[in-house]
């Protein structure tokens, strides 16, 4: 039998705010345990939460970027369960009135080849809500210690519909969602720091069946590759169970990316009754149009929209756009350079091939680059005008990357300009070349335009490879016309 998988993702994204969601203590990663705390974070007797508006701004912005409906009023609920990482033994979250409803994440599936755009899909979202992150348990041999530094960091829970069917789709979803959050300045989404965490709900059903199968929740998918691998593994596992005549049990499973295996954490019988109720310490929040408009104005163009624009406006090849648009800063860098050079494709090639290679080799980020968009544009113009040849330009780039000097200064210093620039010497070489090849002259005269190339080799040889090709071409045509 053929099976179809149905996949929904629950993604937790830490919102990048300076202070915690309900108090003024700083957020942060890698600090001494329990230093980012105060009476509110530690849930001391009498402490009260107060909403951090920056966290609300961020989630509303995220909702706007993903096309969600923003609730006119949102409220806060207590999700109650006992665990030492939760200082109040309830988590302030949103239960029945999430701030963002609906919306979509646009994804692109792999194309037929690297240079061919793949199929685009819009994965529908169920909801996004805001809650507080919990602390972290560190288990020792004889004890477990709690660190509340993370507790109270604003956290968005982004829930997709069960609308994906392959591990590749889930991978593409997460990649796109992550880029959107980074683009919007909402989160850095560093999975190693736990800024983005993903759980997957997976079920399978015979192809053609419309009813959902029994779902299994897969946890601890702590890299984007693990999400893909874990889901692929789980689909295979479920098919295996059914094919052996077994039944799928509703459960939570832990995926181990190192070994590529999973094991059961708990079954449905142990499910919590969270006893949600509205938090009486916090007031509902009204989100009016003015607030949304202000945030809408701060929303950047999303990567796929940018890619469509780059393809249409700059006529860039697909591979080049794919290399440019996923990094907001790089895309901006490209646009600045292309505007100056007037030659988008050549500009894009320099950035993607040379700049990224040199940055990678030097282990630097774009922000560290001594080569500014103006450098790239100047270099493109030097090549385009024939002032420097392509090979020389490559050498110029490396020097320019190391020193930050302008390309013309580098060319001058290293003698890399195309020569001669005086047309007299060139004209003589051209006359010599025409005189030496009457056959090509005759062909050209009879209308074969490409015959002109036959003269160029000897000219370049005479010029020791430093002739300006454009100038050579112009001079030859002028002389041939009068011959």
């Amino acid at each position: 039998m053929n099976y179809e998988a149905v996949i929904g993702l629950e993604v937790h994204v830490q919102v990048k705010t300076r202070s915690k969601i309900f108090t003024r203590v700083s957020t942060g990663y890698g600090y001494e345990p329990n230093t980012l705390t105060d009476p509110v974070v530690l849930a001391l007797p009498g402490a009260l939460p107060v909403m951090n508006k920056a966290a609300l701004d961020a989630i509303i912005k995220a909702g706007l970027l993903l096309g969600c409906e923003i609730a006119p009023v949102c409220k806060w609920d207590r999700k109650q369960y006992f665990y030492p990482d939760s200082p109040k033994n309830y988590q302030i979250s949103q239960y029945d009135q999430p701030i963002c409803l609906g919306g979509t994440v646009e994804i692109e599936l792999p194309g037929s080849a690297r240079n061919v755009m793949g199929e685009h899909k819009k994965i529908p979202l169920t909801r996004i809500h805001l809650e507080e992150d919990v602390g972290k348990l560190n288990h020792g041999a004889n004890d477990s210690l709690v660190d509340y530094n993370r507790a109270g960091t604003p956290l968005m829970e982004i829930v997709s519909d069960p609308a994906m069917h392959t591990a590749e789709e889930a991978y593409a979803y997460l990649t796109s969602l992550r880029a959107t959050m980074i683009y919007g300045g909402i989160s850095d989404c560093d999975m190693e720091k736990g800024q983005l965490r993903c759980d997957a709900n997976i079920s399978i059903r015979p192809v053609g069946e419309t009813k959902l199968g029994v779902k299994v929740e897969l946890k601890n998918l702590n890299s984007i590759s693990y999400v893909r691998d874990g889901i692929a593994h789980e689909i295979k596992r479920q098919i295996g169970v059914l094919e052996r005549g077994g039944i799928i049990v509703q459960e939570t499973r832990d995926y181990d990316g190192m070994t590529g295996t999973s094991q059961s954490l708990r079954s449905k019988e142990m499910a919590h009754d969270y006893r949600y109720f509205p938090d009486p310490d916090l007031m509902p929040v009204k989100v009016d149009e003015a607030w949304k408009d202000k945030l809408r104005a701060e929303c950047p163009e999303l990567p796929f929209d940018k890619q469509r624009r780059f393809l249409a406006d700059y006529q860039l090849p697909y591979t080049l756009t794919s290399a440019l648009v996923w990094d907001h800063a790089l895309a901006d860098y490209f646009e600045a350079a292309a505007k100056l050079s007037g030659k988008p494709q050549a500009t894009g090639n320099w950035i993607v091939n040379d700049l990224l290679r040199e940055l990678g080799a030097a282990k630097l980020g774009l922000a560290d680059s001594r080569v500014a968009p103006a450098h790239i544009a100047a270099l493109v113009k030097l090549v385009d005008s024939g002032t420097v040849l392509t090979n020389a330009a490559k050498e110029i780039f490396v020097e320019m990357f190391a020193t930050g000097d302008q390309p013309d200064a580098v060319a001058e210093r290293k003698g890399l300009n195309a020569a001669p620039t005086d047309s007299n010497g060139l004209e003589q070489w051209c006359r010599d070349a025409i005189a030496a090849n009457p056959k090509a002259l005759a062909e050209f005269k009879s209308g074969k335009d490409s015959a002109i190339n036959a003269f160029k080799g000897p000219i370049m040889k005479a010029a020791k490879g430093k002739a300006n090709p454009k100038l050579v071409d112009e001079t030859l045509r002028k002389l041939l016309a009068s011959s």
Partner: protein
Amino acid sequence: MTSEPFYQTIAQLAAALDAKRLSSVDLTKAVIARTKAVEGRVHAFNSFDETDALAQASSSDARRAAGQARGALDGIPIGFKDVIAVTGQPLTASSKMLANFVSPYDATVTTKLKNAGAVVWGRLNMDEFAMGSSTENSANGPTSNPWDLTRVPGGSSGGSAAALAAGEAIATLGSDTGGSIRQPAALCGVVGLKPTYGLVSRFGLIAFASSLDQIGPFARTVEDAAIVLGAIAGYDERDSTSFQTEIPDYRVDLKQRQGPWKLGIPKEYFGEGLDPEIAAAVERTIAFYKGQGCEIKEVSLPHTQYCLDTYYVIATAEASSNLARYDGIRYGHRSQNASDIVDLYFKSRAEGFGAEVKRRIILGTYVLSSGYYDAYYLRAQKVRTLIRNDFLATFRDVDALITPTSPMPAFKIGEKADPLALYLCDIYTIGVNLAGLPGISVPCGFTKSGLPIGAQLIGQPFRESELLAIAHAYEQAHDWKNKFPAL
């Protein structure tokens, strides 16, 4: 009238301090001496810190000597219910759970009173986590009523009421969730004010039921209550439920505002179960206002019969959640006999909480459980709205309501063993909390056996000035404030 400083009012003492007839150190010493003399019988305090109090008094005297006194409260010893955080002082809620807890921070009211120069004095006994109406539910044992040591002072702020009645403080703070300031004030013969919900910050108040809790003053006179309220009221950015409103000078207002007022008598508050002596005393109070030209009108609060049920759903639901943090993990009582994390939760909480607290946590957990939420919690919230609407409807016709504060005078310690019988102590006070209104209990006489009786005045939201003025008018015409228990 007594000349003992510990039985004088803030107004009198402030005048004496300003006139240099008295120093704050002398006043504080007198209060400490009085406390030591009677505390063995009254047991109003969980703890007190003499050295700290005298140091604060000494600072106050220095300010006054330098001409930098901060107002009427500068140098006045004020007792704190053991549910309000004071930096460096125990904060126990009269629970074994927090027996060794010392607060590392100040509640907003603490900060405000310190800024006003008050001497923060002692930790006052109460029903554990403010759950009770007699102060018998304290891990530290009951407090006695200074008017009859065999009787309860009421509760949950029984220590706050008893300490004031016994001269162990000049004013005290309590908290009121269902009557916990007004009822003990009535039973101990002092003034007790529960402000409008949102007028006083709850930051630093150990939460019982967040949507009902309010901090308020106990004082010898309405004027003193106005002075303390003026110091602690106001918007606080650390409490999202505090309200942005202009704080008037209550002390000036209560003297300037004159009647006659229109007063409503809710008929549901004078029915079965009301002690006849209390009914008679409240009737005399009503008659006084009538004699002053006030229009007296019978009104109806038709949903009154649902107040108690509604309260015990909402208050216990919130409490079950608010008290979840007491788990022995970060602070507080931790069982030494636990084998794993779940066992640690069970044993720490089983050992740390008293019977009434457990009863309410269990009830609250039940009403929030899956499948019961709609039938209990959600429905109770709807009834709560009806109850509030009842009150607001009466205020279209009247300025304030007059009722008894408590259906009964102080009862014997141990007399009410049935928790449901105790819940009935709050039938006249609970509606005010559910509706978020201000309420004040003022002494209005004594039973034949010499137990104090209180009348409750209920006002409109954020109109404490008017409520205080109405209470003040009665108080000025009567001598109850000058009667003190024979201790």
